[in-house]
C-alpha cells in the first residue's frame, strides 16, 4: 500500500525541498519505489535540487489540466533506480491546482509507487493545503528558531483539521518532526533553541535531526541530493532519518557538540 507523505513547515527557507529530495533519494536507495512531487507551483525548485531541471518537459499542472499524460511528466532520476520526480510548473500559479486533479494523480501514482513524497510550498494557503490534504504522514521541517517553531505549530494544527483524514474522521495523520540546520555550538551559546525546547513546544515524535552543514548548500547547488554524500554529516543524518521512517530504531546523532580530536585538528578535518 502506497504511503503519501507531505514535507511541510509553514515557514519558508527551512529546508523542505532539500529534505524532500534527500528523503525520497534515501527511500529509493533502499529499494522503495518512490516519486517526489513539487507542489510549489510558480516557484519550481525541486528539479534544481534533484539536478533534473534540463529534462523537464511537462509538469504537474499540465497533467491536471489534461495536456499531458502522467507518464510523460514523470522524470526518471539518473542516479537512483526507483526514483521519479513530478515537477511543478514555473509559469502558472497555485490556483491552477484543483483538489480533484490532485486526487486523481495521487490515485494513479499509488498503483505504481511505494512512497509518494509531496514537497509543500511555504505558507498555509491553497498550495500548502493541497499538498497536505491527502497525506497519510507528515514530516514537519523546523529550524531551531522561534518563528519557525511557531509556524510549525500552526501547520500541525492544520494537519489535524484541514486534511482528508481529519475531515473523514479516520486515523489522524502520523506527524513527524524533522529539525534541520541544527548547530550544537550555537545552541550551547544560546543563539538557537535547544532540541528539548522544540520538542516540548511541538510535542511531536522526532524523526530526525539534520546538523547545519556545508554539504547541504554544496549539494543544492550541484543538484545532487545530500543523501548521496555519505561521508557528510548531513548525508548520514538524512540516511538515519529515512531508516526511522521505515521503522528502524536508530540513536540520535549530531545533536551534541563534537570535541575535535587532536588528529583532526592537526590535519584540519574540516569536511562536514
Amino acid at each position, binding site marked *: 500500500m502506497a504511503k503519501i507523505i507531505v514535507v511541510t513547515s509553514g515557514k519558508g527557507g527551512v529546508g523542505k525541498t532539500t529534505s524532500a529530495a534527500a528523503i525520497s533519494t534515501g527511500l529509493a536507495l533502499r529499494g522503495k519505489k518512490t516519486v517526489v512531487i513539487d507542489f510549489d507551483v510558480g516557484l519550481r525548485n525541486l528539479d534544481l535540487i534533484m539536478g533534473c531541471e534540463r529534462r523537464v518537459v511537462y509538469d504537474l499542472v499540465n497533467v491536471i489540466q489534461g495536456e499531458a499524460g502522467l507518464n510523460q511528466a514523470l522524470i526518471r532520476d539518473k542516479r537512483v533506480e526507483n526514483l521519479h520526480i513530478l515537477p511543478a510548473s514555473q509559469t502558472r500559479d497555485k490556483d491552477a491546482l484543483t483538489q480533484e486533479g490532485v486526487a486523481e494523480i495521487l490515485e494513479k501514482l499509488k498503483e505504481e509507487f511505494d512512497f509518494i513524497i509531496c514537497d509543500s510550498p511555504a505558507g498555509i494557503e491553497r498550495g500548502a493545503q493541497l499538498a497536505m490534504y491527502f497525506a497519510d504522514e507528515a514530516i514537519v521541517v523546523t529550524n531551531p528558531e522561534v518563528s519557525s517553531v511557531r509556524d510549525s505549530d*500552526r501547520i*500541525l*494544527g492544520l494537519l*489535524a483539521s484541514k486534511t482528508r483524514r481529519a475531515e473523514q*474522521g479516520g486515523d489522524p495523520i502520523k506527524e513527524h518532526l524533522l529539525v534541520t540546520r541544527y548547530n550544537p555550538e550555537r545552541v550551547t551559546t544560546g543563539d538557537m533553541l535547544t532540541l528539548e525546547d522544540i520538542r516540548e*513546544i511541538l510535542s511531536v515524535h522526532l524523526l530526525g535531526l539534520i546538523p547545519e552543514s556545508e554539504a547541504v548548500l554544496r549539494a543544492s547547488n550541484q543538484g545532487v541530493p545530500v543523501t548521496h554524500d555519505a561521508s557528510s554529516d548531513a548525508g548520514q543524518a538524512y540516511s538515519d532519518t529515512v531508516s526511522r521512517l521505515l521503522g528502524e530504531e536508530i540513536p540520535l546523532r549530531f545533536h551534541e557538540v563534537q570535541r575535535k580530536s587532536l588528529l583532526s585538528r592537526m590535519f584540519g578535518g574540516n569536511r562536514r
Partner: protein
Amino acid sequence: MSLNADSANVAFTFKGGMLPMTVMELSSADPEHIRRQLAGKLSQSPAFFQHTPVVLSVEKLDEPHLALERICAVCRDHKLLPVAVRGGSEPVRQSAWALGLGWFAPVEEGRARSLESVSRTPEVAPVASSTQPDVESLEAPNAATRLFRGTVRSGQQVSASDGDLIVIGAVNAGAEVLAAGSIHVYGALRGRALAGIHGNTQAGIYCRELEAELISVAGNYKRLEDIDSQLLGCATEVHFIKEQLEIKPLS
C-alpha cells in the same frame, strides 16, 4: 526653543494612539434586522454592551444610501456608541459627517478578523470531539464544561461558550482559549486565555506554567509584558479581585 517655552500653558497636545476598537461589520442595512440581532447578543453577553464605542463597517453592503441615522439610534438603544463609519459610498460618507461621525477608508480584504468566532464553535472542535467521542461524556463533570485533550496549537481557538474549559496539554503561543467560566490548563499556557467572556468576574485561570501572551478575566486583561517576571514559568492562578487581575503562584 519656543516649543519648550510654550509647553507650560498649552491647552492640549496631539498624540497618536492605537486604541482597541470594536468594528461592527454590517451585512444587512435593515435597522430592524440589526435590532433583533443586538437584542439577542445583549442577553448573551451583557458586559459587552456598556457604552462600547464601535466603528460601523459598511464595506460589505452594496447600497449607496443607508439609513445611517436609524442604525445609529438602534446601536445607542443597546448601549453601543457608534463613533465612526468605515467604507461605503460618497453619500454614506456625507451622512456620516452630517451625523457627527468620523469616516475611515475601507481596509484591504482579509485584514479584519471576525469576532464572531468567540461564540461560534471553533474549527478545531469537531476534530477534538471526533477523535475522542467519548471523553466529554465520560469525564466532563457537567455538560457545559468542555474538556480538550492535546496541544492547542498556534492559530487554533478552543472555547467553552457556556462553562469551564479544561485543557489537558499545552496552549501554545498564537493559540487562544476562551471560556464563559474558568480556564484550567494542565500544561504550559503560552497563548491567550480569556475567562469569563460573558462578563463573569468570578471566573479564574489556572495553569501549570504561565507564559501567556495575554490573560483576561471578564474583559480585564494583562499582557505578557505586564506580568511580574518572577511568576513566569510557575504554576499560577489568576483572579479578578478588587477591580484588578491578581496573579499568584498556585501553592
